[in-house]
């Protein structure tokens, strides 16, 4: 009980902290390397897909002289590594090229569409986590009872029913028949031209500037698509939670907790679930990542101006710069999510420190 002993503890914690920082730096280094690979990948796609970037600019009626001039202007006569260096340095300054279809800088387009997807994915994931984890826990604790069966059916529907069908049914029921919720889009037409969203996050900006009528309208609009994404994420998260919980509940330390005379609630939520969180971090992060990538079908059905829709339409229009920019963004988002889950995991689980 001397001072030296607490000093040792502090010393050990300091060592652990340094190990943690080293681990994070290492992970970040891996992320940078992955990012480099990603740019090589998108660059290669742009150069090797059988669409002619020059033709896309000059059109197929241009003369050979014009074609040759543009070919030179675009630097296509230079060696590949020079082209890549140019491409990479342009990316570094945020120049993703120009979208032929929207006539905007791709960077500006992405800045506009990504927040829409971000808002939808975040609320969807929140719904998925807040409902999925308790459902999974209940299914594990009441294994074999109707709760478990119900969660199984919910999961099965989530895995097997196409999302666009559920989306259309949702619109049909809550918009067309019951008229409880607004139709597709992010905002009512009345607000669409009067409300200026600075960050692109409508909910956030509306709340920040105190425009509560806009905020509630945006809430009503996001409810159905977010509930839909939340449902699918809930289906996945609840199944995973159930299996992680069953694993934890069969561990010996749970028997110890029972021997100690703890309440069942404490055993389940404090002991078993906290341990189940360790693998759940990865599951939730991956599910969030897949939603951030833009759920094409949901965004289509709900006319949601997000990343998924942008990526799809630019692919349909062979709008190469836009498609590659969006692909790159998806890659970066995934990298970031992975990095985040890695850090969270290390902070949360003392065994990994």
């Amino acid at each position, binding site marked *: *009980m001397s001072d030296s002993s607490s000093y040792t503890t502090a010393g050990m914690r300091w060592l652990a902290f340094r190990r943690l920082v080293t681990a994070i730096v290492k992970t970040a280094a891996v992320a940078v390397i992955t990012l480099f690979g990603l740019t090589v990948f998108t660059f290669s796609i742009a150069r090797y897909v059988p669409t002619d970037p020059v033709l896309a600019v000059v059109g197929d009626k241009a003369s050979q002289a014009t074609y040759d001039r543009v070919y030179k202007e675009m630097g296509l006569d230079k060696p590949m590594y020079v082209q890549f260096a140019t491409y990479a340095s342009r990316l570094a300054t945020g120049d993703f090229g120009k979208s032929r279809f929207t006539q905007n800088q791709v960077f500006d387009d992405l800045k506009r569409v990504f927040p829409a997807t971000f808002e939808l994915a975040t609320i969807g994931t929140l719904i998925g986590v807040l409902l999925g984890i308790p459902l999974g826990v209940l299914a594990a604790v009441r294994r074999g009872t109707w709760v478990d069966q119900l969660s199984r059916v919910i999961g099965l529907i989530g895995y097997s029913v196409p999302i666009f069908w559920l989306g259309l049914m949702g619109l049909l029921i809550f918009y067309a028949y019951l008229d409880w919720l607004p139709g597709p889009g992010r905002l009512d037409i009345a607000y669409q031209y009067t409300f200026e969203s600075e960050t692109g996050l409508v909910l956030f900006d509306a709340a920040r500037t105190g425009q509560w009528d806009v905020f509630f309208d945006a809430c009503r609009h996001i409810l159905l698509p977010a509930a839909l994404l939340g449902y699918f994420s809930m289906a996945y998260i609840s199944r995973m939670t159930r299996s992680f919980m069953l694993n934890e509940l069969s561990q*010996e330390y749970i*028997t*110890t907790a*029972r*021997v*100690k005379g703890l*309440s069942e609630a404490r055993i389940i939520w404090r002991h078993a679930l906290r341990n189940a969180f360790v693998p759940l971090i990865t599951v939730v992060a991956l599910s969030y990542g897949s939603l951030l990538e833009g759920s094409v079908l949901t965004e289509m059905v709900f006319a949601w101006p997000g990343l998924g829709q942008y990526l799809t339409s630019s692919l349909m229009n062979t709008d190469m710069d836009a498609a590659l920019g969006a692909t790159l963004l998806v890659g970066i988002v995934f990298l970031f999510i992975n990095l985040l889950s890695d850090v969270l995991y290390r902070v949360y*689980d*003392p065994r990994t420190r």
Partner: protein
Amino acid sequence: MTDTPRPLLEVENMNVCFRMQSGDVEAVRNMSFTLGRERLGIVGESGSGKSQTGRAILGLTPPPGTMTADRLVFDGIDLLRASRRKLRDIRGKRIAMVMQDPKYSLNPIMTIGAQIVEAYQAHNRAGAKESRDHALAMLEAVRIHDPQRVYDLYPHEVSGGMGQRAMIAMMLVTNPDLLIADEPTSALDVTVQAEVLRILDELVSERGMGLIFISHDLPLVSSFCNRVLVMYAGKVLEEVDACNLDNAKHPYTRGLYRCLPSLKCDVKPLPVLQRDPQWAA
């Protein structure tokens, strides 16, 4: 044997049965014994039902197992009729159990101190400071030289012997009347086994607790306990006084005893236990 007017624990005709798809498995059959504030050893080989006996007393038979008994009375409290709440009160506060391997029996993401405090607070209205002091004192009682430091460590950061001492501290912090030790040293290095046993021995004597010591180690049990129950295939074959083990009557016990290698005389080959199907009947 110290006979008290009211025994600490009375078990009469206890059965533990697991209903499996492949048929019923009777882990414990017709178990009866009475325990005072003394040390009772339960020995038997793997699967003989000794661990399930310990768990059944605490009402912790894991599903799909069920426990039935004619009588299961702890210090005048009928455990068969006690409410869940009452049972929970008894668990940890009056009956505690030390399990085999601290690597699995401690929660991996809680510090050792937090786990001891949790055990204490489950049965005592106590603030953070008081609970911490109790936990630290208990860690000192199990001969951990640096309780302040160990308090903040996670289970994976300590050795097996240290972990098991922390486990003992956690189980004894509430001052229970009966301790069930389920192979408390089997997972430990031979070098630390003796030390952990000595600590357990001292604490049990000091506090006048009853002890049920479950083990497969016959000589160890006989040196540690007053009486020994020998189990085989879920049944108690015989009850012997620990000092009288050499004179055990049942052929199984005698067989087990004879199988032990000895340093003094070289027996080659070691005798093998000849099992009689009658024993399991």
